[in-house]
């Protein structure tokens, strides 16, 4: 099996996530591999976003949210007492469902995060490099001082990806990054993800089966059990999940007989 060739960069062990007393995710075990695109799919409300947010401790901001189990990043549990969540988020960046650039210029959007992380090199070069990596440079190179909110939705989302890259993370989390975009902008982002996967590991939550099938290497399928707690049903190579699912529920879902 190919997945064993790589060392896992994230290892999830017996993860449960609670909102107050409600258990939103139950007993998940998962390994994320370096320089791969991992897709998380499943019906609405099964806890995909919850799991994704737990990878860079964004759940910390939700009052009442708590976790059980371990999430090992380079063999270190990121929920250990001595781990600073800010450091985790610098290594594991995030792109959100709705593009959310800062209400500043394009340039500042990229420079800000890098500056806050103590970047001391040539900022102009960094901005150009990350915009090129995010396939946005050609469209905006003449108007870097324009307000980022005046860009189109697809451009804004690529700016958000560029902004995340500027912090030089190892992993990029994406929560339905294309759900607000048209098919052409979506394809652009998928191409971009493929490009980025040479240097980064990407975890993407998506509702779009074709997108998961097209763009990912690994796929995890989640669903809800009878308590409405999210459980992981099946995890494997994307080709295997989509052509030869082992589980009946997975098969029903990807063929559209579910949800």
């Amino acid at each position, binding site marked *: 099996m190919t997945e064993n060739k790589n060392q896992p960069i994230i290892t999830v062990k017996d993860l449960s996530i609670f909102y107050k007393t409600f258990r939103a995710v139950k007993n998940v075990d998962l390994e994320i591999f370096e320089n791969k695109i991992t897709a998380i799919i499943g019906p609405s409300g099964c806890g995909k976003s919850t799991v994704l947010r737990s990878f*860079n401790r*964004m759940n910390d*901001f939700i*009052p009442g949210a708590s976790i059980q189990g371990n999430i090992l990043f380079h063999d270190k549990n990121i929920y250990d007492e001595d781990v600073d969540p*800010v*450091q985790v*988020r*610098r290594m594991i*960046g*995030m*792109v*959100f469902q*709705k593009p*959310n*650039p*800062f*209400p*500043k210029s394009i340039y500042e959007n990229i420079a*800000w*995060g890098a500056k*806050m*992380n103590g970047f001391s090199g040539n900022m102009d070069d960094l901005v150009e490099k990350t915009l090129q990596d995010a396939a946005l440079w050609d469209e905006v190179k003449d108007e870097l001082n324009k*307000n980022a*909110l*005046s860009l189109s939705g697809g451009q804004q989302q690529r700016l*958000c990806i560029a*902004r*995340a890259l500027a*912090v030089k993370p190892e992993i990029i989390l994406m929560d339905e990054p294309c759900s607000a975009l048209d098919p052409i902008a979506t394809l652009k982002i998928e191409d971009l993800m493929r490009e980025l996967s040479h240097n980064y590991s990407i975890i993407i939550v998506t509702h779009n089966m074709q997108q998961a099938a097209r763009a990912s290497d690994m796929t995890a399928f989640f669903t809800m059990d009878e308590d409405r707690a999210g459980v992981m049903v099946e995890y494997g190579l994307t080709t295997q999940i989509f052509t030869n699912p082992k589980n009946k529920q997975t098969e029903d879902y990807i063929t559209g007989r579910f949800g």
Partner: protein
Amino acid sequence: MNKNNSIFESRAQGNLKKRHRVSKIWRSSFFLSTTIGIFSLVILLFSIINQAFGYVIVENNVDPASLSSMPLQSLEREELISILQENVSKNRFKTIQRDNPVEELKRSELVGLVTSEIIKPTTLKSYFLIPSLTNKAEIIRTQQDEFPNAVVQFRSWISPSFLTDPLSTNPDTTGIRTALLGSLWIIVVTVIIAFPIGIGAAIYLEEYSSNNWLSRIIKTNIDNLAGIPSIVYGLLGLAIFVRGLNLITSGAFIGIDQSNGRTILSAALTMSLLILPLIIINAQEAIRAVPSSLRQASYGLGATRLQTIWYHVLPAAMPGILTGTILAVSRAIGETAPLILVGASSFINKDPSGLFSNFTVLPIQIYNWTTRPQAEFRNVAAASILVLLIVLLTLNTAAILLRNHFSKNKAA
């Protein structure tokens, strides 16, 4: 088809008439409310303006022409000083010297002194704007019949010299400078104290404090504090700042010879207490209204809480925070009761010069003047109200410009 049509029409018509009637009634009552509001404002402004301008019948104690062949305004300082020395008694001159040494006065101030000490113009009768416009002949006849030595002048009670002259007991020569400076000092110091503390508290409550029973009690109490009558703050200020912290508010701790704590500092501290709840509440609202996607974007890049607040939350909330501050300052500038309690002087003609000066403020002067028997003080009061309104509008305009500056950064 035809049948359906008529059914539709008969049912629709019945409802329609009623609905139109109801909506008409509501519409006109909304319109009426607006009209009443605007009408009262217009009346208010009109009555103030009516009193601030008009004809006066004035008699001079000494004819200016007998003092000098040239108009006073064109004389040199030395000439003005010698006129002063020659025409007032020795004792009076000493008193003047003690209050304001004449050698240090500007020429315009000397002219004012000569006018108030020697010429002593007395307004025998003053008229409001409307009678002045409609009844000029009558006014002139009154002057000729009753005050043959006097002259009729059109006077704007609000004038440059009204703004720049110190307070005096004579409505003809009094200015408003002392009170204007007092108000400005207090407002500026109040904002310097209350603005950062208010924003700090709002940031803590919104961004740091967890939502437990203690913070909920604090939040509820801040809301209640905003509704407490201002006189209560005055009592508090009197007890804490004027009496309790006398050593500090009087300036004694840095060796300022000032026997009481009835100072600008005490007043500003009291005013800060008064407007803090307003600033906190408005700042909280503004901070809460900052979209969470902005915070997430910042945290997602590995920013700390402080960086997120400082670079994203505060700039986005600033227009709302400034709006709240405008409201609070507008309230503070018109407050009278608490300042009377913390010891605003009802009569003082020495300009406030720092945190530890005694003071008076515009609303207190307005109040004092309206309680005087002489009719001319009503004109002076009206003029001061106009000054107060202008100060208010100026401050608000400045804050609105600042707010627009921040909003512009946010716009797409």
